[in-house]
């Protein structure tokens, strides 16, 4: 596993929640959105264990709905608890990313 995917693993839950917060998506859509953002290191299948875990913890819920292209797909929605969890993750990320940025990138430039 590359360094980058190792790093990403810890924050991937937050990324998935953030994508779902914008609008409800189904699995394939979610993976394409993550890819388009630039998170190409995650193999597409990785999202499914994550979606199951988030569901089990009550942060998202799935619902069968007709998709834009026609057939039924399982769309994921953020729950109240999910919204709260996302806020917490955002806050934590801010606290970590600032010092890490300063330490790693700041030093190289300075």
């Amino acid at each position, binding site marked *: 596993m590359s360094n980058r995917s190792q790093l990403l693993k810890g924050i991937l839950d937050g990324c998935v929640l953030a994508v779902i917060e914008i609008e409800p998506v189904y699995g394939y859509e979610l993976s394409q959105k993550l890819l388009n953002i630039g998170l190409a290191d995650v193999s*597409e*299948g*990785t999202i499914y*264990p994550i979606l*199951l875990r988030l569901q089990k913890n009550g942060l998202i819920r799935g619902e*069968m709905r007709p998709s834009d292209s026609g*057939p039924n*797909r399982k769309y994921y929605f953020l729950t109240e608890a999910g919204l709260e969890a996302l806020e917490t993750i955002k806050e934590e990320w801010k606290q970590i990313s600032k010092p890490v940025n300063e330490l790693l990138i700041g030093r190289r430039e300075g």
Partner: protein
Amino acid sequence: MNAKQLIEDNNRKRELLTTENEEYYGDLLLYIRLKLTLSEQQSEEVLMELLDHLLDAQEAGKTAREIFGDDPKGFADAIIEHLPKEEKRKVIPFIGGIIADIIGWILVIRGGLLFILSQFTEVEVKSTVHPISTIGIALVLASFVLFTIFYIFKIIDRSLFTEKPNAKKDSIKAGLVGALGMAVVLLVVKFLPEIGPAFVFPWWVSLIVGGILLFSMYLRKKRKEE
């Protein structure tokens, strides 16, 4: 959509997969379905999601290996880890239904056999039943059935995600276990002494009780489907 509809949908959609993708996905599907303690509904839902995803990706020119990774077993285990267990209120009627079905068939076959045999020989004596001995035989039979099912599942489990599954060897192994187990059951039936109290259980009572049991199981199944 309930599990049954999902399975039918899955069967239909799977035919759209390329041979390579079908092999990969087929193993994944069997591996997850063999985990009987998991919620069937949840298992089928995630299997359908994976299949839909694979079909979309196939359209975009990607393979199952590229999407789900080089370690299908590891991927399947990650999925299984987060699937909820089947609820007890669904498991008990399921197992109870199987047992009732088996008992129903045994009673019907017993009744039929006793009737046919009685046309040719004097089998009046044989229509007595010793409940204690019968329970003993039932326990031996049940453990044989459970062991065989468990063993066959193990064989299938091991054959998944391998380059060249040895189907012939596996069939022989499963056949041997089935034959040996059945031999044990028959020996027990033959040599178990008839102990405890006995009562007469004529062929027609056997037939009627078995028939009622099977018919009510059939009604229950019909009602569940509606």
